């Protein structure tokens, strides 16, 4: 993967002595390659984050795919340093839409099947997506992550989002504020509260 990236960079930095039209085409091709690199670097993390937020493998894949298409379609011409927060803003909106649909679907299903059937419905936390084929030496991390997912599920959506974006995706405060459409102060407050809740819930957890 690294080698591939190096090769692509080498192609991008190759000297060009072309006419204006060719230069323009070259710039467009460069941008497409840059978008490809950007999406390739972000898609798996975005998918895991979407999985944690939606707790559904297929829905998470759809959300990431839609976010990619919208990103390319609407923001591909924006400066590259804006891509990450913009992509996560799109993904966040898509996740919120899906969560609303899931809520309505659950309400309809609960009404349709009656209270008895609803009580016997499987706990969505139990069916949460876990990385498959985890080796034994990664069990500790997998356990910690599973517990974090359960705690995150109980947090407010803002706290959960800010934790996923800041800690897992590594966005800084300003980028997270763009992605979440809120102030930087709000990002700091929600993040601190999320960390407090996690610390409280996982405080006794010792591997």
């Amino acid at each position, binding site marked *: 993967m690294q080698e591939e990236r190096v090769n692509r960079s080498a192609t991008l930095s190759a000297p060009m002595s072309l006419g204006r039209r060719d230069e323009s085409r070259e710039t467009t091709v460069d941008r497409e390659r840059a978008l490809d690199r950007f999406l390739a670097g972000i898609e798996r993390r975005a998918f895991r984050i979407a999985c944690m937020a939606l707790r559904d493998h297929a829905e998470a894949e759809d959300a990431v795919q839609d976010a990619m298409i919208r990103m390319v379609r609407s923001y591909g011409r924006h400066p590259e340093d804006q891509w990450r927060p913009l992509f996560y803003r799109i993904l966040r909106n898509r996740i919120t839409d899906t969560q609303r649909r899931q809520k309505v679907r659950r309400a309809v299903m609960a009404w349709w099947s009656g209270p008895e059937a609803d009580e016997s419905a499987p706990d969505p936390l139990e069916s949460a997506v876990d990385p498959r084929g985890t080796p034994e030496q990664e069990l500790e991390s997998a356990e*910690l992550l599973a517990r974090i997912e359960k705690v995150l599920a109980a947090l407010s959506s803002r706290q959960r989002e800010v934790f996923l974006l800041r800690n897992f995706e590594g966005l800084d405060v300003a980028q997270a504020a763009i992605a979440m459409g809120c102030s930087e102060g709000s990002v700091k407050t929600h993040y601190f509260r999320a960390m407090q809740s996690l610390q409280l819930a996982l405080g006794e957890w010792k591997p």
Partner: protein
Amino acid sequence: MNDEMRELERRSRAAFDESVESLDAETRSRLARARARALAELRERRAPGPAVWVPVGAAAAALVAAMLWQREESTAPPPDAAFAALEDLDMMAGGEDFEMFHEDEGFYAWAEEQMSDGVG
């Protein structure tokens, strides 16, 4: 943030990174395909080109031809306007010298009269 929180931050991030690395091949492949689809759409939007317009033009030409043919079928003898239109197309396609029209003002006036009759 206290040290305990920072440690929790670090360990949870490491656990997340591991879960990303251990994603199964099938999911990775589907994500790569989704990316390819997104970029393909970008290419399609960037260059609609002749691949899109040629069939549209052909369809429009076929529609015009069908309309003219239907008019010909429904009325006998064929209307002058339809004939005139076909002749105009023929002349334009044949690259005729249109300078001759300027040389004969009488013909020009007659042609205009015929066209207005045909339309009305």
